[in-house]
């Protein structure tokens, strides 16, 4: 059984290694890099949304702060990407601790509007602290990462850089969720008062998940900054938060494959919806609305459930990894 699962992952990893060489244009390869970065953002959002069950509307703050932090450290201090990205993760984590410590005292809708207010405040700072961020015109000429003197600049090398981080983060999240801490998260999501009654320190666990989530979002922001080499305060805008929410809810909250599928769909759909122009975001909104109305578990669970029912009907016994 264990070997079977390993084989499945191996196949997936090989598919993703070969993928960028199979796609026809640099535009699509570009989309693949983007999908990886957004997958990180979606995974970070899901940690708060899917595992401790809090509706956060402030994820763009950590994404944007991570982007600015890594860009500014790398450019102004001339420090290589590998250290500046750690700086971004740490700074996003500290900010996450601060915001989480305040907003996680509030529940439900109050938590949501507080995180949104914090994101707006961060955007305000990015727009107006001109000496540091260069304001609304954006921050340009961010250095590319390099390894052994080779610049990681074009799509394929950057794809692999992102891919490594995505795999790393998936492993970290998976281990976290399977650990006693992860089970405490789920207990908090399902029954907060009951979790408290059995001795789980609810607030501490919530803050912890929030900080880890902020750090992953900061990493995603840093990767974004060094890939596009241009960032603007728009990165802290609500559209990135809504994008992450769509990926999580459409794919399936509280499930890693679900969120990854959500990120994939979100990044591939623009290509098919290209003629629609600005109508695209409206279509995404409709998809989000339909998903929460008719598929509250997300696409992944619906498909997995459908396959399961189908195989049962045929009388086959198919190994199925459990979906929590």
């Amino acid at each position, binding site marked *: 059984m264990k070997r079977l699962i390993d084989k499945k992952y191996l196949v997936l990893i090989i598919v993703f290694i070969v993928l960028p060489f199979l796609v026809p244009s640099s535009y699509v390869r570009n989309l693949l890099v983007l999908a990886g970065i957004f997958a990180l953002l979606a995974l970070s959002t899901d940690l708060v949304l899917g595992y401790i069950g809090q509706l956060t509307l402030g994820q763009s703050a950590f994404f944007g702060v991570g982007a600015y932090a890594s860009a500014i450290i790398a450019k102004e201090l001339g420090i290589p990407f590998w250290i500046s990205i750690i700086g971004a993760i740490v700074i996003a984590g500290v900010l996450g601790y601060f915001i989480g410590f305040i907003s996680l005292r509030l529940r439900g809708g109050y938590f949501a509007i*507080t995180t949104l207010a914090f994101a*707006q405040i961060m955007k305000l700072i990015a727009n107006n602290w001109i000496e540091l961020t260069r304001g609304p015109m954006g921050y340009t000429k961010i250095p590319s990462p390099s390894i052994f003197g080779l610049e990681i600049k074009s799509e394929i090398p950057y794809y692999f850089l992102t891919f490594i981080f995505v795999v790393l983060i998936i492993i970290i999240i998976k281990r976290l969720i399977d650990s006693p801490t992860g089970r405490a998260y789920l207990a908090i999501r399902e029954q907060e008062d009951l979790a408290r009654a059995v001795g789980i320190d609810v607030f501490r666990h919530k803050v912890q998940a929030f900080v880890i989530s902020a750090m992953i979002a900061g990493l995603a922001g840093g990767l974004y900054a060094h890939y596009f080499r241009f960032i603007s305060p728009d990165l802290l805008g609500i559209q990135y938060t*809504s994008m992450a*929410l769509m990926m999580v809810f459409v794919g399936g909250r509280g499930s890693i494959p679900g969120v990854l599928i959500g990120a994939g769909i979100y990044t591939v759909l623009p290509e098919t919806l290209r003629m629609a*122009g600005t109508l*695209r975001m409206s279509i995404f909104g409709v998809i*989000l609305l339909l998903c929460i109305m008719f598929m*509250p578990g997300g696409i992944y669970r619906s498909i997995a459930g459908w396959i399961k029912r189908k195989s049962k009907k045929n009388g086959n016994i198919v190994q199925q990894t459990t979906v929590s």
Partner: protein
Amino acid sequence: MMDYGAAIGQQLINGVVLGLCYALLAFGLNLIVGILGIMSFAQGEFYMLGGVFTFAFMQYLGLGYVTSILASILIVAFIGALAERFLIKPLAEKDMEITLLGTFAISIILMNLLEYIFGNTPQKIFTPFKTLYNIGPLVINQQRLVIIIAGILLVLLFNFMLKNTKFGISVRATSQNKVAANLVGINVAKTYTLTFGMGCFLAAIAGALMGPLSAVYPSMGQNIGLKGFVVIVLGGMGSLPGAVYGGIILGVIESLGAAFISSEWKDLIGYGAMILILLFKPQGLFGRKGAGV
């Protein structure tokens, strides 16, 4: 010294005008929060629809300002009622956070749909109320005067309606006890739909009235939707007079802050105040203890 006083007076007038618009929007939001128990993230978009529709009716149909306002607010109220009936109601039967996310999705859809139709260039609404009045050293234009009068009248009207009409009584009964209201023969579902439509109606009036003073464009509702929450947190969730006081306080603080501290950082005051109040005085500045949603 006189100049300084006049400048403060001028900003106070502007602040009250802005504040009354916040108050109308927040009054509507508070109806929705208090009666349906839903935090609507789409309120800013209904404000935007009021402004953009008014502009569109004037620009493309050649209607007058007042006629355009009346037409657009009725349409917005209708859209709001439809949204409640067909989108929010089925979600509200599931759970609160899903509903919240649903209103968020509605706001994304409306904003981007309008941007697709009208583009995102800020447009100016030309108001016929252009006369300037001098009160001592202060100047007030007719549009601001119209906002002050309309704002006060609307608040009084809605207050009267909620207190004295049959519909108002059924709204208040539903907010106090849904099951009991249902038992005494009040159509709860209909009350919800009408209340949501009314909330959107108030937001749309605010958007249409503010249009000539600032520009109208599809993403104008983004910040104001959150401001609505700032106002009702200041005034107390579910407290209708609180929404009016909170709106005027926020408007005045922002105007004074923009004039004397910095116009770039003025939004910080409102958001910061909201977070602090939520933490330390969650019933709001005017709310009773234990009140709220």
